[in-house]
């Protein structure tokens, strides 16, 4: 029986590889056909024997494909290694923030030490990759590397580093010329150097990993057993981490950040449930290589067709994210009940009144203490407050309330401490809806935008809920990460398209309250309060639902009705706040935890305190965003992510299993 299963899966693997090879072959043929006008075999003439213009095309075809193959392969390899190391099918260079750490280090060096000319330097990227990995592992250590905590740590680190990058790019906009060069993430080559380096690195990586295979195989069973068999566990771990950091840094420093390929490859390997480590690593490399090769070809073709310079990273997200979602959905039968770690918190007096008063004072404070053309001062000019500051402050507060409420509802409903409209991709779904309606249904105006935003949120939400009963909570997060990446890719395509109308969408979705007006602000705050009140009405059924479906059914609660009601509520909350300030803000994930660590353990208290705290954080973030670099602005979402992310990482030490 087992033998037959193995055979079956081997066949399926071959079919998958053949399918991908076919796709890669076909797309490569299309690329060559599109670009190369000489005889096919002449494509392989040594570069210097070709006329210059032909050589430049040859370089755009051959070494570019080689770089795609080797980069994808290395990222696949890295992700399989990481998964083996932490015994977690969610680990990858993207989810554990290895790539973003390397990227961040390069950015900092380019910005602050330009004279060293270290932009794109390999060792800088290496230090960054090691640093972010160390951070993520440290965060997960107290929970003994609980898979969910680990991925949550990576996720939060990613969001935080992304926000800091955005902030640095805004703040040092004049010095970022250098940054733009290497962060382009373009696979297009104009020499053979990079492809040669990556090929050598691939060979060396496999040779180095050879002697590690046996101990890794033993370690994959049980640490204690491995130790008793005389495997130097810590040494092996250190070596693997070193290899992972080296390879990721190499890729990031040579071609820029490439997300999702590693995760996609490793997830494919898992789907085929390959056991032997050597085989897993090899397959990871093959899948990664083929996936990025295909993506690179698609990018080249699209680039030719649209005559735009498309970053590979946008395409890997757009093509890779649906793949990851599909893989997860197709795996949905393997549901295991898992113990979910939570933040340790105890019931305490929540001082609700005190917090409420503080929020009021804060709101008044940010309205009158601002920067004017004369610098920081107390400014009580009535029309400035009413026309400009109040609408934006109110909008910020309203989105804070809505996201925090949605976060509490989702975390309770899915019994997953990492659920939130942003993390599960609901906000991104709504943003994708908005962008698509702008592109395809421009004539419908605002109604079309709101409806398609709602539709997007609702589709994602239904998918999440459908999946929630079928897959591990961790995979659920992965779906959210994938949807968010899809949105990111889509937005960066919009950005380079140069279309004026779409640029407006972009600034709309940048997470800023810039477009708040006196009319919309009051509507927004009104909606926030109505939805918050509605949430109080579903507390009872929600509490029962959160006990698990079995208990709920016994108590005779009409499960589906209430669940649908709560779903609609969450969709409304996420869509309205996305329409107001954009999809990135982090409030929904963090504020519910903050409320519970402050003692709001029961649901009602948690909702109340979360609303206040969410509003407060957004008000502060919006105020800082508007005045820190006056008259320029930093989106409130970016600041909220930095404040929130840092605090959340601090909180994470308290997660125990």
């Amino acid at each position, binding site marked *: 029986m087992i033998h037959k299963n193995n055979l079956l899966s081997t066949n399926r693997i071959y079919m998958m590889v053949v399918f991908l090879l076919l796709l890669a072959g076909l797309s490569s043929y299309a690329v060559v056909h599109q670009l190369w006008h000489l005889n096919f075999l002449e494509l392989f003439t040594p570069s210097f024997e070709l006329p*210059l213009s032909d050589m430049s095309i040859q*370089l755009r075809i051959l070494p570019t494909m080689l770089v795609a193959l080797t980069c994808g392969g290395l990222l696949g390899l890295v992700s399989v290694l990481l998964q083996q190391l932490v015994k977690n099918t969610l680990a990858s260079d993207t989810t554990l923030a290895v790539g973003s750490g390397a990227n961040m280090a390069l950015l900092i060096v380019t910005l602050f030490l330009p004279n060293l000319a270290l932009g794109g330097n390999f060792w800088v990227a290496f230090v960054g990759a090691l640093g972010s990995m160390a951070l993520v592992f440290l965060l997960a250590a107290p929970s003994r590397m609980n898979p969910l905590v680990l991925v949550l740590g990576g996720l939060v680190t990613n969001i935080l580093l992304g926000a800091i990058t955005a902030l640095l790019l805004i703040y040092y906009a004049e010095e970022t010329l250098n940054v733009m060069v290497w962060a382009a993430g373009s696979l297009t080559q104009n020499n053979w150097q990079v492809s040669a380096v990556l090929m050598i690195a691939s060979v060396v990586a496999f040779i180095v990993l050879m002697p590690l295979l046996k101990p890794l195989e033993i370690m994959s069973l049980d640490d204690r057993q491995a130790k008793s068999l005389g495997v130097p566990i810590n040494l092996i771990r250190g070596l693997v981490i070193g290899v992972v950091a080296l390879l990721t840094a190499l890729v990031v420093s040579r071609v820029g950040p490439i997300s999702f390929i590693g995760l996609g490859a490793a997830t494919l390997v898992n789907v085929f449930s390959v056991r032997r480590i050597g085989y897993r690593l090899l397959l990871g490399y093959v899948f990664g290589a083929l996936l990025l090769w295909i993506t690179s070809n698609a990018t080249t073709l699209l680039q030719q067709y649209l005559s735009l310079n498309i970053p590979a990273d946008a395409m890997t997200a757009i093509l890779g994210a649906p793949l990851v979602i599909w893989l997860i959905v197709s795996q949905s039968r393997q549901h295991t009940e898992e113990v979910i770690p939570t933040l340790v918190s105890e019931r305490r007096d929540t001082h609700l*009144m005190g917090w409420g008063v503080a929020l009021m004072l804060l709101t008044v404070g940010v309205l009158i203490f601002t920067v004017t053309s004369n610098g920081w001062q107390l400014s009580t000019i009535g029309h400035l407050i009413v026309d400009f500051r109040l609408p934006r402050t109110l909008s910020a507060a309203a989105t804070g309330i809505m996201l925090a409420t949605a976060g509490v509802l989702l975390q309770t409903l899915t019994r997953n401490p990492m659920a939130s409209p942003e993390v599960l991709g609901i906000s991104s779904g709504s943003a994708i809806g908005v962008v698509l309606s702008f592109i395809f249904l421009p004539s419908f105006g605002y109604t079309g935008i709101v409806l398609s935003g709602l539709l997007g949120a609702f589709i994602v939400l239904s998918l999440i809920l459908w999946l929630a009963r079928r897959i591990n909570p961790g995979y659920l997060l992965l779906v959210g990460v994938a949807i968010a990446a899809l949105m990111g890719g889509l937005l960066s395509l919009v950005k380079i398209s140069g279309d004026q109308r779409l640029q407006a969408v972009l600034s709309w979705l940048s997470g800023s309250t810039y477009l708040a007006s006196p009319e919309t602000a009051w509507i927004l705050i009104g909606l926030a309060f109505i939805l918050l009140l509605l949430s109080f009405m579903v507390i009872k059924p929600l509490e029962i639902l959160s006990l698990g479906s079995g208990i709920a059914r016994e108590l005779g609660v009409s499960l589906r009705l209430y669940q649908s009601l709560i779903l609609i509520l969450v969709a409304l909350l996420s869509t309205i706040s996305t329409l107001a300030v954009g999809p990135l803000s982090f409030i929904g994930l963090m504020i519910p935890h903050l409320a519970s660590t402050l003692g709001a353990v029961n649901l009602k208290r948690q909702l109340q305190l979360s609303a206040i705290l969410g509003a407060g954080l957004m008000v502060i973030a919006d105020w800082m965003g508007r005045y820190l670099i006056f008259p320029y602005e930093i989106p409130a979402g970016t600041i909220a992510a930095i404040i929130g992310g840092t605090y959340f990482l601090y909180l994470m030490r308290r997660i125990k299993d």
Partner: protein
Amino acid sequence: MKALTFFFELSLALCSSLLLSSCQLSDAPPQAVSPNHQKTLKVMTPDWGIAATLTAMGYPPVAMGDKPFYKEWVGKPLIPDTTLDVGARYQPNPEMFSQLDLDLVIDNAFYAHLRPMYGDLPIYSIELTSSNKIAKWEDFIEPTLQLGRSIDKVQAAQDYLTNSKKQIIQAGQTFQTRYPHIKKLAVVQFADTNNLRMFSYNSLFQPALQMMGLQLVALADGNEWGFTPIMLGDLAQLDDDTCLVVVEPLSDLLKLELEDSLVWQRLGYFFDQEQSYSNKGRCLTLLPATWSNSGVASMNVLADRLTHVTFVGNTDL
């Protein structure tokens, strides 16, 4: 208790920022100095090209967008310190804008979305570009005069046009005594190591070079912004007697990466004079940032800069 601490922290933050603010208050509100005794209209423009042209005419705007970045991308004419910065060009700060004392706003279609913000102020929309496939000097006369009319300084605009034309022709003569063999120029700007913008015949480089007695060479017709996107390898199609003008900014990192590029190496261009000399490099120069959308002001700057730049490589074409 928590709330109290929070309030305390908040007030502490407020006080400390207040202290900071007192330092900044000392630099008193700047006031635009009028170069003329008769009343000068107070203009705000989000656009660099209009700001540059107004400044060149002698009537700088009282406020403009993205002032710090102007230095890097436009450079000349220098905007006086008295001109205030209203924040991002595409999204100016409305709170800052409302505190300005203005007479009018001058913009172009690119900034049409901002018009509700201007309230009752009169708005003039002026395009400092040519709509012809091959741009001519004459295409820029009317918009420049229009700009003069909008601030009640038609004479200044007229004088500016006359002087500019004279200066550009003069610059052409200076250029030709210095580089008698250079006749054809291709003007590009790097986006990254593979992608460039090549300025084409509908850009202002065409009439400016023409008046200087030079010829602009482009590989394709330009888009609405006057350039055509090309790949690095496309430069191979340029004739040997065409000099390459690379418009800055060009980052150091990009230069390093270019030196590694096989295509760049085979093209035979060098940025460094000595290297270029010893390798018999092709004719090339780096042109300090020159904005391609400022009409006559850009042409003026271009002409002036071309007389000062040094071409490396073979200039005896």
